[in-house]
């Protein structure tokens, strides 16, 4: 079955991820318009449990900030793999936005 409904990435100006210091990862969805923001800010679509499942991290460490004035949803969680260690494949955590960006509202 092919699904052509737009993803959050399609509805966003930019979806990005980055280290916030060596021990946290932070992800931001900059939504294009009010409708896109409403989709991303929907607590049924993105919540602590969903982030925990997408990133295989404990839900109680996940922080979500919904910022309507900027049409931004920001998500932070403790980095599960120590930065620069043998199993860290993304030193700046700059490519970890993708699992969120492909969510379909």
């Amino acid at each position, binding site marked *: 079955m092919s699904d052509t409904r737009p993803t959050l990435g399609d509805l966003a100006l930019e979806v990005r991820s980055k*280290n916030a*210091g060596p021990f946290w990862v932070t992800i931001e969805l*900059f939504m294009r318009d009010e409708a896109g923001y409403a989709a991303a800010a929907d607590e049924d679509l993105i919540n602590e449990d969903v982030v925990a499942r997408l990133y295989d991290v404990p839900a109680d460490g996940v922080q979500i900030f919904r910022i309507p004035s900027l049409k931004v949803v920001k998500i932070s969680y403790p980095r599960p793999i120590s930065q620069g260690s043998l199993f860290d*494949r993304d*030193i700046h955590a700059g490519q970890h936005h993708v699992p969120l960006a*492909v969510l379909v509202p």
Partner: protein
Amino acid sequence: MSKSDEAVDEVRILVPSGMLGAGFDVAAIERGLALGAHVIAVDGGSTDSGPYYLGTGTPKTATAAVARDLRILLGAAAKAHIPLIVGSCGTSGTDSGVDWVAKVVENILAEDGLDLTVATIYSEQTAEDLVRHLDAGRVHPLAPMGELRAETLESCTHIVGMMGHEPIVAALQAGADVVLAGRATDTAVAAAYPLMMGMPAGPTWHASKVVECGGQCTTNPRSGSVFATIDRTGFIIESLDESVSCTPHSVAAHMLYETANPFRMREPAGTLDVTDAVYTALDDRRVRVEGSRFEVADQYTVKLEGSRITGFETMSFTAIRDPLILKDIEGWAVFLRQVLTGRVTQTLGLEPADYAFDIRLYGHNAVLGHLDPATTPPREVGVMLLVQAADQATATAVAKVANPLMLHLPAMDMDYLPSLAFATSPAEVERGAAYEFVLNHVVDSDVPTSMFRTSIRKAAAHV
């Protein structure tokens, strides 16, 4: 240059770029001076590139790139008679990083005939001193870390404390024209001069956070030079490239960048709170911000960063294009892991606990691993083998045992040996020591300058 007893209405800060050595247009600096900059402030470091730089005490940036930027900034500071402040010298702010930048500065001053007083502020900490703080109950973990153990401190090759603005202010008040600081908070570099001149803490720390990454707060992040004007009730932010704008959105959005919490940011002396900040466009390229608050903490704290050696690494890299292997590339990687583990025991007599390795399938799921949402088959895959062991010889021996497998290992259902595409000869690259960050803790410090050491080299005119 100490003017801290004179009352001023506003302080204007020139930030040439988000990182010393990143480069900037000379025209932007000239424009900043023409706008009446009182100080030039630039960050020289970050933990963002990983624990190697702190672990080794070596810089990420090229000497020539840092020298190019410093030559222009020292010339500008001398011409305008304003101070130049560089924070987190040498990427990680180790003593060797401060000395490295100081040497570059010394050479430029001599070559260009500039006579400036240079202060160096050292922020490296000894495990011995910190263990005393730990034993006295003055060291506390930050989330997500747990309680610190003395052995962790003793295992670090380098530990730095992040200074606030106070040691920088002390150096300026002692007459420094140029301040080369070891590890400092990104914001302290820009905040020091306006705080010394009596500007209010809320707007000063907020403006300093906005400018710390240069052009990130503008509509064109590649244009790096920005200018902040701080006054009694707020601050104004603009780009030093006339074709680039700051908008209320671009400025507010910068508070998101590399922060876990976009509204509250801890500094050594307290917490910046921008929850009620109001961003207003003054025209099509300048933004005014009011309503930022700074809450002074009950306890002054200095954050620690430490890095230690985790082992030694050797990397090997081959590539696969044959669809017969790619159709079950994950099965092939499992097979490689299994055969390699057996061969290492057979040949080197090592058990899995004696070493570790990661097999990364670039082109398939190397970056996200099991989190990857995609399921499409790859066209080609680069196979990186990264081996870690207690010493370099063992790591390389394991990679060499893997070499024939990375050349000829077939898919499970093949009855012949394929030859895979090594990227280089030899395939193995010794990476040397590998490091990890192990500290995310703060030390209670009642005197903000007490953990830092300053030395001042006076200009000839003042000797």
